[in-house]
């Protein structure tokens, strides 16, 4: 999971001077939202990756022309969108996006804008998972990342199935809570620990 959703000015300066490490940091920050965004057009993973890779390559070629992360982001999303629209135009790709775009001509723009916002919002939300307490993070990652069923997780974590189920919905709730208020989260966790220890009758 990539951490933050921002990058500092010094890294941007290094990037514009052609520093490979800095480019990698920009890449790390934006490749997932960008692939996800491209995937909404292509409906296909490999093509989405190709589209994102091409956009990053173009970014690298023009690296001296960007003064802010906002400018880089705008360039990358715009480039991916244009490439994807070209791809869809030149190829009969039967995909969700294609059908949507074909159904409402001229409205491709609101589609791109919504999906860009979705990608960026998911980046913020998913970055939080890495910060959840171990117990919940493990359950979320096992079920989300590795597509394990509750049964399989129970087996691997040596827990009862309904425990895993409870942990999972708890983890989702915590994910929301952690975005809401850090203090509240700590309080909830403390209370949960007490509950787990059996001070309340179950």
């Amino acid at each position, binding site marked *: 999971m990539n951490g933050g959703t921002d990058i500092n000015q010094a890294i941007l300066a290094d990037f514009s001077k052609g520093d490979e490490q800095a480019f990698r940091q920009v890449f790390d920050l934006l490749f997932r939202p960008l692939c*996800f965004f491209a995937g909404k057009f292509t409906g296909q993973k490999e093509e989405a990756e190709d589209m994102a890779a091409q956009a990053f390559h173009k970014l690298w070629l023009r690296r001296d022309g960007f003064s802010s992360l*906002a400018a880089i982001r705008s360039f990358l999303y715009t480039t991916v969108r244009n490439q994807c629209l070209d791809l869809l135009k030149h190829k009969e790709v039967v995909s969700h996006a294609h059908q949507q775009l074909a159904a409402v001509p001229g409205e491709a*723009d609101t*589609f791109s804008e919504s999906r*860009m*916002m979705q990608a960026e919002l998911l980046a913020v939300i998913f970055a939080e998972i890495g910060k959840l307490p171990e117990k919940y993070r493990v359950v979320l990652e096992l079920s989300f990342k590795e*597509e394990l069923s509750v049964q399989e997780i129970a087996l*691997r974590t040596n827990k009862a199935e309904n425990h895993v189920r409870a942990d999972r919905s708890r983890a*989702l709730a915590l994910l929301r809570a952690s975005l809401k208020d850090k203090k509240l989260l700590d309080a909830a966790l403390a209370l949960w620990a007490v509950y787990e220890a059996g001070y309340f009758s179950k």
Partner: protein
Amino acid sequence: MQPDLSFNEQLREALRKHWAGQPLSENEQALLDEWLAASPDNRAVWEELNDEMALELQFREWNGYDRETVWRKTTALRRPAKTYRLYRWAAAAAAILLIAAAAYLLRPKSPDQQTVAQTVTDVAPGGSKAVLVLADGSTVTLDSAGNQVIRQGSTAIRQQAGQLRYEAADDASEISYNTLKTPRGGQFRITLPDGTGVWLNAESSLRFPTAFRGKERLVEVSGEAYFEVAKDAALPFRVNVANRATIEVLGTNFNVNAYEDESEIAATLLSGAVKVGTGGRSALLKPGQQARVNTGVSVMNGVDIEKVMAWKNGVFNFKDAKLKEVMKQLSRWYDIEVEYRGNVPDTEFWGKMGRNLTLLQVLNGLEATGIHFKLEDNGKKLVVLP
């Protein structure tokens, strides 16, 4: 072309807050309302974010994008930019040379001189593919694109993409047997008339009756399959594994690996209880245990379930796997023949890779261990070199 896309950070902050149930300022509320009203696309996105199932799918899609894969694709586009300054006469001379070379290369050849064009080939990963053999011996080819209902007497068989579902026949007509076979590079999922789910890995087969009647539910399997057996205490479920072992089940999840080129059968129990037997000997398994069958049955504890189940979850898990084991898996999934040339050490591997990668992408990853690979025969043969 449409105008550039710009990103509104304030709006994202308002959406994030609202998603997390945090109170919004007047300004933020206005931003949000305006955004929601602006287009049906926005509302669709918002709904996807607030539905737990949809969010889970987005998370999987998100994590399916691998950092190294995309980075490799990005840097691969970076070729050293060479500029050729050619004088006109040089260009003309080169053109003449090219024509001469073409004439030489394209000259008619005697058959034994013919060479195959050496192009870089890659092999696509396997996918949902299978053949269903019906009771009368006729076959139906199944792939990921199919959506159909196959009628066989009073039984309806529904195919939906990579899945097949049997619906129990309601009358007491005679029982017939069907066989689902996956080729190399194929996998398929089937739901039997009793609700039992079976995932078939590549180069495997499952023979089963179109209705379960009598005292037990008996199926035959070869290759590799994962079973989620529907509970029915009155009708025990029994698996005949390649005529070399039987597994008796009540209601349970287990994986069985019985490829012919493996020295032993491995049956791994995820939950419930099964009895694995061969030639009069048998062993009762507890969840997390694996039975290995060759002449007798031995039980292993502390099995790496994640590794056993990797294929069903769409990944190769090469943790502690020897070179030959890795190559067997690749040969089944990419339908390639493997040849070892020279003194190749039996290296141990580690790590996980998606089964949706192309062969070259997987090999790229494996080359980090110092083993080298070469694709020959138009992508049909993989040569392993030290």
